[in-house]
């Protein structure tokens, strides 16, 4: 929470600036409307795209082909029970295969990120942003209460949400 007078970065919830003593209680620590809306709205409003999945034994070349054809940045890796076991992203392709294409026949399961961080439809958008920031992810699988994947959200979905909300708030201001 930045003091509007001296610019000192106080911890959230401070009533007076630690550096200059100016009152901060009138500042809203949970931010303005835009910031509040990402806490108030659940991930469900982003309408997560249905997940594109692949088995862990499928070759990496098949995964790349699917991602290219479907124009998506990731595939969810599921086992025979449809349980989520990993995520395979374009980042995995760039980091691991761009210089050595001889391994494209290897199974996806050898190169996926196992046990990825997931979110539920009811989690807030703010939590999804926090999880992306924390892990450096661009995609998060959305799972149901049995941990089965029901969708995927990307940082692009959140960006779109923020742009729409921003436009709405500007038009009503």
């Amino acid at each position, binding site marked *: 929470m930045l003091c509007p007078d001296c610019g000192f970065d106080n911890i959230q919830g401070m009533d007076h600036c630690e550096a200059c003593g100016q009152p901060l209680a009138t500042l809203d620590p949970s931010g303005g409307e835009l910031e*509040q809306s990402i*806490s108030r709205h659940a991930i469900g409003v982003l309408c997560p795209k249905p997940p594109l999945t692949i088995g862990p034994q499928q070759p990496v070349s098949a995964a790349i082909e699917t991602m290219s054809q479907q124009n998506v940045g990731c595939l969810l890796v599921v086992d025979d029970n449809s349980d989520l076991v990993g995520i395979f992203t374009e980042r995995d392709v760039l980091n691991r295969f761009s210089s050595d294409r001889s391994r494209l026949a290897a199974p996806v399961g050898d190169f996926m990120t196992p046990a990825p961080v997931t979110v539920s439809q009811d*989690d807030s958008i703010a939590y999804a942003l926090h999880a992306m920031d924390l892990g450096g992810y661009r995609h998060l699988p959305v799972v149901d209460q049995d941990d089965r994947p029901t969708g995927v959200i990307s940082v692009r979905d959140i960006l779109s949400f923020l742009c729409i909300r921003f436009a709405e708030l500007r038009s009503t201001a």
Partner: protein
Amino acid sequence: MTTELPVLTAKDFASDQELRWCPRCGDYSILAQFKKLLPTLGIPQENFVVVSGIGCSSRFPYYVDTYGFHSIHGRAPAIATGIKGVRPDLQVWVITGDGDGLSIGGNHLMHAIRRNINLKIILFNNQIYGLTKGQYSPTSPVGKRTKSTPMGSIDNPLSPLSVAIGSEATFVARSVDVDTKHLTSILERAAHHQGTAFIEVYQDCNVFNSGAFYYASKKGVKENNIVYLEHGKPLIYGADRDKGIRVSEGNRPEVVELGNGISEDDLLFHDEQTPEPSLAFMLARMRHPEFPEPLGVFRSVDRPVYDLALDQQVTEAIEQKGPGDLDTLFSSGDTWTVE
């Protein structure tokens, strides 16, 4: 002549301060139940005090129209002890969190509890430091990845109830923020307890630790993950109420399915009034997913109350030696001058 108390409602305990918690925070629910409870206790509004430390939950005193302190980090139990020491007639509530109460203020919490001061302590457990944007707390589980544990926490978490029971708490309970009916009943029990009442409330931080307690709060999920404690009744749970807790050899809890020769009589019957704290301690150690986690009153026993004993000592001292005089005491000798 008796003076009748004015009839108050929850609205009378709402302050004029703007709430500054994040939207959908569990704190709102706890605050709402708290404000509903206070007017039912038959205590004059001016005789309530709410004391907090530092953290999201510790903004609580601003939002209830009672006397209160938003005090210093972890020291709410110490300040509340001072209040009860001089004004045992007040009802004093302490609001704290898992970081404030168990890390910075762990020492103060422990000593307030073991003295059995007549405080009502609510510990909001969201397993994270929310106000400072998501660092791991003393109750964060092993492996929890946060801003301060990027590779996952390697700390063994504290169980707030184990700490309270280990400190010889006379009233120990647990509830969930969104289980409003249950939470209200637990707060009411705590309000009427003589001595330190310690309540842990499971609470999701929907920004930094979302879903931490879904297993205990989501309809359709929680039924198989929690067991409600009722004094004198067997521990039965499950969506079909077909499972229970039995004590096996070595005094260990065991999940069993009812039927096939196992009846309710074979299950553990809860006794919150037993003087020996072993049962409460065993229940407090039952953790998801191995066991259903108990909600309700773990322990409720009688023991001399510190502030009443202190008040009695002061009264006796005044009767024996007169009211005393601070200046006289100060100049009575055994003092020295620093030069």
